């Protein structure tokens, strides 16, 4: 909403904090919050941090790029960062607004091709980092982004990722969060695609004690295309909730999404997906898949893939599976001399590979692969 832009840019942090304090903590009875207890999030800690007159942002950002990237002008930035809708998660967004720092915002110009930009942010306390990418027409870029804990203790954070793709822009975006097990994390990632824009979005996480992510893909221009592939590799008591929304508002757009969870120990995955196709979005092609591989009798998988279709000339489908490694597959590997644990690990790695092999940066693919091996290996040994 345009009317909200000035409000956002001029809102001092204190009033954002006031709104946050007045906003209720999400209620467990709300559909979105039935699976992860919002009361368990450290609200107080964030409110205390926001009250301090001056505080360290608790984020150490390192950016690596082959070219010098221009910044986004203030008006555009405000437009991108406006809090568009009030929903069950508003309290997170206002609290994030009250604390937000730093805002890492880049304009990726149309003449940039094949550039790889790497952003790593190390978190050391109640933190509220923001990443904004504004990709102009003609650009074709790869951006890798990671949040990680500075220490092994709790480093709670609320994050926000905003990506706007102009007409025909192309972006391959890789996002990873590997916080310490004790770190509560909420983040919202929102992407907007104009006509014929193309987004390829990879996500990897190892979860934490409290981990909730809302990922939205707004297909706003005809012919826009998005591919999303996500992997949660959980062990111990780590948990992760991912809510994905594929919003088709225009004709002839295409979205494809697969989210995989690899669950060892007592880990818990919640996947809530939504494909929403508006009346105007004829000739939509949308797919959503949720795949869960359970490696332990104490792991817990919940999956809720939803469809809301208001146009008729569409192809929309979803699939969800939950299960353990096929016994025939295990048997085959064990006849080849692998131990049961080795065979299980191999099957699990194969499951993860479907996501990892799509990663365009070799070093990042290797990084994710070894994180999977470590998590699984420690649990099956």
């Amino acid at each position, binding site marked *: 909403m345009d009317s909200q832009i000035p409000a956002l840019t001029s809102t001092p942090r204190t009033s954002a904090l006031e709104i946050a304090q007045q906003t209720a903590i999400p209620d467990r009875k709300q559909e979105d919050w039935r699976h992860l207890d919002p009361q368990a999030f450290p609200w107080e800690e964030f409110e205390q941090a926001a009250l301090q007159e001056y505080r360290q942002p608790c984020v150490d950002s390192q950016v690596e790029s082959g070219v010098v990237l221009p910044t986004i002008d203030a008006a555009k930035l405000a437009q991108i960062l406006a809090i568009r809708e009030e929903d069950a998660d508003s309290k997170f967004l206002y609290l994030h607004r009250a604390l937000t720092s730093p805002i890492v915002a880049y304009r990726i110009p149309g003449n940039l091709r094949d550039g790889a930009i790497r952003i790593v942010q190390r978190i050391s306390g109640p933190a509220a980092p923001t990443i904004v990418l504004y990709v102009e027409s003609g650009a074709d870029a790869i951006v890798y982004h990671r949040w990680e804990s500075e220490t092994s203790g709790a480093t709670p954070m609320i994050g926000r990722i905003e990506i706007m793709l102009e007409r025909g822009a192309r972006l391959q975006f890789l996002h990873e969060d590997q916080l310490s097990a004790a770190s509560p994390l909420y983040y919202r990632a929102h992407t907007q695609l104009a006509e014929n824009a193309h987004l390829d979005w990879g996500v990897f996480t190892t979860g934490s004690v409290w981990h909730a992510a809302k990922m939205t893909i707004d297909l706003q221009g005809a012919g826009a295309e998005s591919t999303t592939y996500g992997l949660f590799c959980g062990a111990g008591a780590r948990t992760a909730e991912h809510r994905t929304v594929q919003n088709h508002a225009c004709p002839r757009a295409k979205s494809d999404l697969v989210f995989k969870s690899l669950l060892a120990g007592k880990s818990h995955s919640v996947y809530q997906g939504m494909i929403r196709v508006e009346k105007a979005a004829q000739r939509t092609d949308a797919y959503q898949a949720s795949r869960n591989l*359970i490696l332990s009798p104490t792991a817990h998988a919940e999956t809720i893939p939803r469809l809301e279709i208001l146009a008729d000339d569409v192809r929309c489908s979803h699939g969800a599976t939950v299960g353990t490694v096929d016994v025939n597959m295990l048997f085959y590997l064990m006849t080849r001399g692998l131990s049961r644990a080795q065979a299980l690990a191999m099957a699990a790695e194969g499951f993860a590979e479907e996501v990892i092999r799509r990663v365009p940066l070799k070093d990042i693919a290797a990084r994710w692969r070894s994180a999977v091996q470590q998590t699984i290996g420690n649990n099956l040994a």
Partner: protein
Amino acid sequence: MSNKAVDSDIDNYERYGFHQPEKYLVKMDKGLSRRVVEEISAYKNEPSWMRDFRLKSLDIFLSKPMPTWGADLSGVDFDNIHYYVRPTDRPQHNWDDVPEDIKNTFDKLGIPEAEKKFLAGVGAQYESEMVYHSLQKQWEELGVIFLDTDTGLRDHPDIFRKYFASIVPPSDNKLAALNSAVWSGGSFIYIPPGVHVTIPLQAYFRINAQNMGQFERTLIIADEGSNVHYVEGCTAPVYSSDSLHAAVVECIVKKGARMRYTTIQNWSRNVYNLVTKRAIAEDDAIVEWVDCNLGSKMTMKYPAVFLKGKGARADILSVAYAGSGQHIEAGSKIIHSAPHTTSVVVSKSISRGGGRTSYRGLLKILNGAVGSKSSVRCDALLMDEMSRSDTYPYMDVKEEKVTLGHEATVSRIGDEQLFYLMSRALSQAQATALIVQGFIEPVVKELPMEYALEMNRLIQLQMEGSVG
């Protein structure tokens, strides 16, 4: 709309939409209160435990909020409903003794003919009470009980009390509480161990009065190794103001027994159809819900199976059709709590003319239910750009050694399919109806033949107005 479509509407209206003049022994005033509940219980001359149960349920009903997560129920006005309407003083066992106007109704619907031809037993409920009940002698001799629920309570108090409200307690949901407070009629079925009732038992439910609430209560007990197929049909005339149908169905399917429960719901489009149906399956039992929802203004119905015994199996097959102004929310609820249990859900939905269909399903596999398998398949067909289709499945797995798959698709009728059939000289309407029939075939083929024919005829009627 073409002439054909108008004709088909008239045809449909003549078959189901008529209504008889309202003539009743008892018709309570609208609205719900302790007094109404006490009076219902008094009319029925019930034991005191049932009266207390009703009053306790009323309190639960009043204390619970209206569900907000599904269809829009804001149009339900609990104060504008007759909670109890009694057309006759007792159910008849001889068709000739049924009062003339009621008999006319069911004659028009073809119930007595159907009974003669292929049913083991028939029950017919008119408003709040069963008006007719019969069971063929051969089944009676084997110990099969098929009665209306009120008579069941009177004649078989021990079995009744043991199972009644054991599967759907009043606290389950607001509408189950309402039903528990004001229930009347429904079927009470007991199949003794090892008895296979080879032809279906049928009940027919009819709402005739305006602003009527029908709250039938059905209790089916299939004892060890028995086999039964129960079929129910529902219709109501077209009135301008809304009626409410809030039934509760409880089924206990014991070790090795098999129960199939088939519903052809064709309420008129001013009925809120809010039903709680649940079955418990013990070791190696099989529960099958075959559920066809064509009518009503709004339906919320999630047939449930609790797979409690080893090796138990649940099959849920459903067809939902929503035309203009209809929202049909049909789904399923399955809980795997024992090892090696299996469930299969096939849901087919069709939305047309601005109608909305939703599938809402719950699938839970508890820790310890090793070797459980589940497959859910939802297909939706959208007939035009005004209509809407939703899928809201929820899967919760707490066991490692399971196989679970869910798949859903939404699409419209393919142009190539239509083109092919039309090149074979079918009209567009015929081609469309044929494709739709093919689409629902996996469910319809499970219906008894007479019902399958009826179902196809109903679908054809609905489709005839769809093009041109």
